């Protein structure tokens, strides 16, 4: 019999029951909750007079709507305020753990889960947010769910699921100097497409992946959903344990020893069989910049904007032309001649300490170009902000002309005041370049933190390694 994949192992550990057709009940260890996708779930429970199955599995935080400036004023948008107030009331009413605004532990839900040790290897983790895939970096089976499923987990601690297919993306060899996790994952999406992982759980493997820090691994798993897969996974190793040890929600003492013995098995067996395998040569990866309105529309920075006329598939060509029209770009323009109006460094993809250090090292001693209207850094959590300030990173950014903001989702999706205006072009470290994502008519180019910092300094995209 073939060995098991990491996904097989975590699934088996959590399968409560299974019907003949494969429909199963999957047990959920950690339920992360934020203000946008939970109010209707709490309301549903109330209407049906159902209680919460396991309150201690929940960790809640407001992040999507929170302002990143003028916190002393609270949330001035009344609609957004009602949503955050509703989360607070629901958490107070049911006695749930919540890091409210003003708590230094508050931040983006996918940043604070790992930061607190609330995400542990081998767990099942869900949240009403598609970027829950982030937590797969810890060898945890983590995926985004809709509000009905949020309510379902609250009421039953389980989800009705069918097992996905096993897919493995192996990035062989070492990446070149200056290539980051963001470049790796954008390159992968460019190769397999935004639906390349649909119906699958993707395990990322290979030397270039295992060489990444936990921050880098989270960046890769975060964008698994942009490749169509709900969940991404990376095996548990010493890097994982070193990150988790000592965090507030992590097991301590004897429990820790017990846990790490069990976690040693959190990898795919050598003879495991995957339904689909993709192998990528790390040496092929250059700094990436997206040029269109889907994350698969991505190129290396030294390439030109692709030409729809060269695309044989008419539907694809039509999609490319729509994207170029929306982005205000002409085919065959060199990407490093594209100028930007705004710079956003933040989001659940790239707002962790390593990301901020990478960007700061680029801007240190330099200035944001005059043509750039706004450059901002939004740390992923209050604790990251504090750490960055202790390291003096805030001074580096401010002296270069960046704004140093309070933590939250911010301009990744612009639910708060941080948005692009119509026609504005942004170098963004976030995860989606969809039409209107960062503001109606806004034009998003996804890049790594170092590449965003380089674009800030030059005013246009440039290979950070040549700066």
């Amino acid at each position, binding site marked *: 019999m073939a060995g098991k994949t990491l996904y097989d192992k975590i699934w088996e550990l959590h399968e409560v029951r299974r019907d003949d057709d494969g429909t199963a*009940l999957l047990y959920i260890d950690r339920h992360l909750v934020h203000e946008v996708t939970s109010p209707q779930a709490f309301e549903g429970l109330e209407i049906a007079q159902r209680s919460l199955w396991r309150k201690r599995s929940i960790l809640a935080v407001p992040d999507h709507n929170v302002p990143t400036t003028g916190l002393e004023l609270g949330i001035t948008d009344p609609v957004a305020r009602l949503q955050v107030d*509703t989360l607070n009331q629901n958490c107070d009413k049911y006695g749930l753990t919540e890091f409210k605004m003003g708590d230094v532990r508050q931040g983006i839900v996918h940043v604070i889960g790992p930061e607190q040790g609330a995400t542990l290897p081998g767990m099942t983790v869900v949240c009403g947010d598609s970027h829950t895939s982030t937590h797969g970096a810890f060898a945890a089976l983590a995926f985004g769910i809709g509000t009905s499923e949020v309510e379902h987990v609250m009421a039953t601690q389980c989800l009705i699921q069918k097992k996905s297919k096993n897919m493995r993306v192996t990035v062989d060899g070492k990446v070149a100097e200056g290539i980051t996790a963001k470049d790796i994952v954008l390159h992968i999406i460019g190769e397999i497409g935004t639906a390349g992982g649909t119906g699958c759980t993707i395990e990322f493997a290979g030397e270039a992946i295992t060489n990444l820090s936990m921050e880098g691994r989270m960046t890769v798993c975060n964008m698994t959903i942009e490749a169509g897969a709900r969940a991404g996974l990376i095996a548990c190793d010493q890097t994982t344990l070193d990150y988790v040890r000592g965090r507030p929600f992590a097991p301590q003492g004897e429990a820790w020893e017990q846990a790490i013995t069990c976690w040693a098995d959190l990898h795919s067996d050598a003879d495991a069989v995957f339904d689909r395998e993709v192998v990528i040569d790390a040496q092929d990866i250059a700094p990436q910049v997206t040029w269109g309105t889907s994350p698969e529309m991505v190129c290396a920075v030294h390439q030109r904007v692709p030409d729809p006329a060269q695309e044989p598939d008419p539907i694809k060509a039509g999609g490319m032309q729509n994207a170029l029209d929306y982005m205000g770009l002409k085919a065959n323009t060199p990407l490093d001649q594209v100028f930007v109006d705004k710079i956003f460094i933040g989001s659940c993809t790239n707002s962790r300490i390593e990301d901020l250090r990478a960007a700061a090292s680029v801007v240190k001693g330099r200035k944001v170009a005059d043509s750039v209207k706004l450059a901002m850094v939004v740390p992923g959590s209050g604790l990251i902000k504090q750490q960055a300030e202790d390291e003096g990173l805030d001074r580096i950014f401010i002296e270069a002309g960046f704004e140093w903001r309070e933590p939250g989702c911010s301009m990744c999706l612009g639910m708060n005041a941080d948005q692009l205006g119509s026609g504005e072009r942004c170098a963004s470290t976030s995860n989606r370049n969809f039409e209107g994502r960062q503001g109606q008519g806004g034009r998003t180019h996804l890049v790594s933190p170092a590449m965003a910092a380089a674009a800030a300094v030059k005013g246009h995209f440039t290979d950070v390694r040549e700066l």
Partner: protein
Amino acid sequence: MEKFEKFTGIIAGIDRPNIDTDAIIPKQYLKSIKRSGFGVNLFDAWRYLDPGEPGQDHSRRRINPDFVLNKDPFKDAQILLARENFACGSSREHAVWALLDFGIKAVIAPSFADIFYNNSFKNGLLPIALGSELVDQLFSELESNEDCQLSIDLENQVVRNASGTEMAFEIEEFRKYCLLNGLDDIGLTMQHAETIKAFEQQYYEKLPWLK
């Protein structure tokens, strides 16, 4: 949830691959704490020429006359036709709520994003995956045909066009059963409460640090 009945309705096509959930319902409308009222903002950035904000009087907004759902007879569409990877992106169930609130009961596309596909069934919206050639055929029929009606029969798993041509589709038995009977998932799972409790007992014995 209402039972999913056989129906005949107008089909409207949006000929784009990778239509994302941000396009289906833009983020500013996610601030609502309700499940209803999203229909007027379905495809907001494509449907209107002016920027939209929550709480606006939508009757005063500038309509994009070229957008399919603003044209007759598609204003009353109950079926949406699109290309690959429909509703990719965020997990927002608001995308499903907006489609339903507008009056859409079924979406036909060659493929769907996983989270949206799942969310649809929880709300009684039927996502129908048809082969690319069949979707091509439906798009060309839409272009040439005056009669833009399609019948959807979930029980027999077929889509039927006005001339009587049938296209069969696949659907998981359990999902079909829930839709046809309007069953609430939570109620179904609660029938297994004792099994879940028994699972927990052995689970936390095995992994005590999670207790």
